[in-house]
Structure formats: C-alpha cells, structure tokens
C-alpha cells in the first residue's frame, strides 16, 4: 500500500512550526497552479501542496472510479493528508472545485481546520430552477467532447510516463515540460464529478470562517455564484479580485497571495 504522501504527491515547504496552509488545485491542472502563490507564505507557514489522485505526479494507479465518484472521495484524501501530517488549525486554500472539497473535509473534521479560502468557488455549475450556475447539461457534454478531442494523441506516448513506467526515461523529460498532463479517462471522470455535483446544501455546514475570492469576468464561477456562496456560508468574507478569468493563482499570483495574506494575518 503506497503511503498517502506518495499517493497524493504531497510536498511540504516553509516553517515546520508554522501554521499549516494546504493548497489544493482545481479541475484541469495540478499543484503547479500555485507556483506563484505558495512561496509567499513559507516564512511563517508550513506550506503543503498536493495533487489529487489521477493528476500531476500523484499515483495514478490509486485512482478508483468508486472512491472518486463524488467529491467526498477527494475530501477523504484531504483528511488522510491532514492525519498523516497531523495538521490542526489549517488554512485550506482550494481553487475551483477544491473549494467544495475543502468545505466537505472541514465539515467532517472541523478540528483540523482554522480557515478556508475558496478561490473561484461554485457549489453547482448547472442551472436548476431559480439557481443560476452558468451552465446547462449540454454545455458539460461539450466539455467532455473537448477533453476527448484533445487527448487523441495522448495514450500512446503519455500513458507509460503517467502510469509511472520507468522503462522509457526519455518520456520523463517530456513530462516535466508538459504540466497538467493527466489520463484522459480520469480527466473525463473528474470533469463529470466536478461539473455535475451539487454542494449547495454543504455550504451551511462549513464550520470555519471562510474567504471567498471572486474573479472578475469568470465564466466558470461568475460573480452571481460567488455571491451565492458568500451568502450561504455561515461566516464568510467576499473579496472581488481585479484578476479576470478562472485562474487568478496563475494570472495574478501577487493579488491572490495579498488577499489571502490580508485574511489570515501576518
């Protein structure tokens, strides 16, 4: 049985005695997403980065359709990491779908968490009744189609690297230059779980103060959704970033880090 730390490619930086700060990547990439943000917290935090199973350099063989059939499975992994590293009073920073994964984890074991930071959260992507998530079911099928189209050339060359097969070392180098590579079947599976989940009811169960970072002109998680999250969390603060798009951790790491810093204090 591989350890949790290997399974999720956990990387620990910064002050071993500092307050734990866990960064969780969203749909579409891996812990590289945080590269401009986490170094700004190493002076006074124990910074923990990881990849969700099936992404980045996690152990892809640990991927299990049933365990990861809902976000609860990913939340269980977060709690495994917290247990393994004995984390308490953690600041959990989740991007995109990992905001909800953090919410689920905190609801289960509040004693592990001190603060949540949700970057571009959405509890429900698909419109339903009066609720506006921004997408229809057909849009999500279009995304799955996009994923399929873009993985046509994938399996032959990338599979051995991703699966940790060491007999073609030249492919390893290729991978270091190819961020966010993931198994197409896993990517589609994660896309379905992410975009078809409904975590609206879970917001009220979040037991810790939460910062909601809302981007400008974010189609994936529009302002109306960020506002919904803010209103339904028991205790939250909403900050609108000047950064546009869905990935301020990449496009505006300074602004993102400054907003987190202002929330967690010096």
């Amino acid at each position: 049985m591989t350890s949790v730390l290997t399974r999720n490619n956990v990387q620990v930086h910064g002050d071993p005695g500092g307050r734990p700060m866990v960064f969780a990547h969203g749909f579409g990439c891996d812990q590289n997403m945080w590269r401009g943000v986490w170094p700004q917290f190493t002076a006074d935090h124990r910074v923990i980065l990881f990849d969700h199973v099936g992404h980045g350099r996690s152990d892809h063989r640990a991927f299990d359709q049933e365990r990861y059939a809902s976000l609860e499975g990913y939340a269980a992994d977060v709690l495994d990491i917290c247990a393994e590293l004995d984390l308490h009073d953690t600041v959990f920073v989740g991007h995109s779908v990992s905001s909800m994964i953090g919410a689920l984890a905190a609801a289960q074991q509040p004693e592990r968490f001190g603060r949540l930071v949700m970057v571009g959260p959405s509890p429900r992507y698909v419109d339903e009744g009066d609720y506006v998530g921004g997408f229809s079911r057909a849009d999500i099928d279009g995304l799955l189609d996009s994923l399929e189209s873009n993985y046509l050339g994938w399996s032959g060359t990338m599979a051995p690297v991703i699966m940790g097969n060491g007999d073609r070392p030249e492919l390893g180098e290729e991978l270091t230059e190819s961020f966010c590579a993931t198994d197409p079947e896993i990517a589609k599976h994660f896309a379905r779980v992410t975009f078809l989940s409904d975590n609206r009811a879970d917001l009220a169960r979040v037991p810790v103060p939460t910062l909601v970072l809302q981007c400008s002109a974010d189609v994936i998680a529009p302002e109306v959704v960020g506002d919904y999250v803010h209103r339904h969390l028991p205790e939250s603060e909403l900050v609108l970033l000047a950064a546009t798009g869905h990935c301020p951790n990449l496009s505006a790491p300074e602004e993102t880090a400054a907003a987190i810093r202002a929330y967690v204090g010096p």
Partner: protein
Amino acid sequence: MSARDDDLTEDSPEELFEDAPCGYLTTRLDGTIVKVNRTLETLTGYARADLLGRRRFQDLLTVGARIYHDTHYAPLLQMQGTVREIAVDLVRADGTTLPALVNSVLRRGADGEPRAIRTTIFDATDRRSYERELVRARDREHEIARELQRGLLGGELPEDPALDLAVEYRPAVAGVEVGGDWYDAFWLSEREIAVVVGDVVGRGIQAATKMGQLRSAVRALAATGLEPGPLLESLDGYVRRHGVGQMTTVAYTSLELDTGVLRIASAGHLPPAIAEPGSGASFAWVGRSTPLDATLNPGPRAQAALTLAPGSAVLLFTDGLIERPDRPLQAGLDAVLAELDARRGEPAAALAREVSDALVGAHESGDDMCAVALRWTPPS
C-alpha cells in the same frame, strides 16, 4: 531570378499577414482581441469591427470549449508560454460551428512580463470528423473484443461436493484493448476435472479470437483422454499447424476428486500456488516447459503429479495478478503466497476475490487478470 519569382517575393508583409493561410489574432492577456487578419474574418464570419476591443478570444468558443479554455488552455499558456495543437470549436457569426486547431504563444515585453497572446487558428473540419471516426472505430473494436471475450469465457464451472471452485476474472479497463487471458474448468471423466489458465500474446479482437481457438483446442484434446504433458505436446502441434497463439503460456492441471491427485503441465505459465493445511503456501514449480511453439524442437512436455492433502487450496492465475510497474516480479510472487496463506480457510470465491483485491487493488488495471481458486475436500 525570373520576373515571375519577383512577383512572389514582392508579397508585402501586410499581405502575408492579412491573407496568411491561417486565421491570426492578437489579444490582451484577458483575451480581448486587439488585432486580427482577413483570413480570420473569413473563417469566423465576423468583420474586424465586431471583434477588435469588443470580444475576447474565449467569447468565440462554444461553451464546452470555453470551459476547456479557462481550465486547461489558459493555465497551460501561463505556465509554458506556449500551447500547441489544441482542438476547440469556434462559433461563427452565423451560429455555425467551426472545428479548429489553435496554437498560442505568450508575447513578453522587454522586462520579461507577459504583454499579449498571439494565436493562430486552422480550420480542422475534415481532420476532426476523421478523428471522430477513428475514436468511434476504436470504441467499436473494443466493444466487439470485450463481447467476444465475455462470450468465449462463459459456461458453467464443474460442481461437486468434493470441490469448491471459483473464478475471479477482471478484464483490462475501458479504453484499453482487451487482453488474451483465459480460464477453463470442465469434467474429464466422472471423477476427474481439468482446470486451465492461459495467456495469449497480444491484444484486441485478434487476441480474443486466438484465445477462443486455443481454449476449444484444449477441450477437444482433453476429450481424447490425453494426460497433461502429452496434451500440451498436441497443443504445440495445433499452434504450429494453424499459426495461432505462438508464445502462449498455459497451465493445464487435472484433479482426481476421490484421491486428490493433481497433475500439472505448464507451458511457461506462472506456477500454481498451493496451500495445504498445516504448512505455508508454496508454488508448485513442477511439470514445467517452454511456452507453446516457442522452440523448433520442443520435445516431450514435462508433467508432474502430486497428491493434495484434504482441505488444500490451489490458486492458478495469470500475470495480471502480480505484474505492477512499481513491484518486482519476485515481490509479486511472494505477495501471492502471503495473501493465500492469510485466506486459506475461506471459500474459493472469497479467496479468489480477496487475493485479487489485495494484489491488484480495487482500482483499474491496464491488463487482464484472472485467478482460479479451488479447494479439495474429499468425500468422507
């Protein structure tokens, strides 16, 4: 240089840009379009006045492609400075869809900071429909091979009070071609059964059909009353004559239900693991010879016989049970014995399932896996 060549070299940079054989657009970092060429206007049906400063590149995409853009394309471009050959669907001004391949580079200023994004767009209508055909064909073949495999492996297992027999068969995951693992168990005579496990080289429909042929051949040869060694010799001949299944490995065993005599002939296959009451599980490295039709002159096939103690458990399996990239073969074999030891008292079905769970895990594998467990308890 001829006058004709002069004409060509006089293509102005402006013309090269405007009428380049691909759409071209420059955007700000947030995607706002600041420059386009004529080809892009033609491809999308938008006049540049409708685009410049008014639309972002991502506004030209279908919603699905747009999610892909925001979650994959934009992050990759940020991190790598370049993204190549990404398939997206654009929506033309008239609402129709344009399947396209796009490349982007991040243009940096003198200070190294990103300033703008340059993107080229190629009409990929024909390519995309061809690729979809390929994907459909691949899925279809996979489905056929899977059906074939299911059909070929069907059938009832022998039942007898002296025998508890169960199979755990896990085909390779969806998206990966089916392999050629097979198992079989059938009556040889009134009080004797055969249990067979084999692995055909190759994947897909071909492997599945070869597996089916060999499985039938084994049954046919067994019906003539051949003992395990001579049966494999005849199977060698079959493989050679029909050119089917060279290098197949197969373990053929027969068990007398009244005496517990187990005969084994293995053509290069992994050895059966045996757990007898009161002693640790071990492999029966006996009755071994080379894979089918592996040598020009295979000679007589080895065969061995041993007598099981009442209550013994036997496990036959294929390499899918033990082969993992992160574990040496020997470690896999050791794990089989350890897991068998730990579950020796369980019913065959639980034994096969739990040993498989322990070794392969509940997660998906890229290879077929087959484990046949039996326990022999003689009539008292």
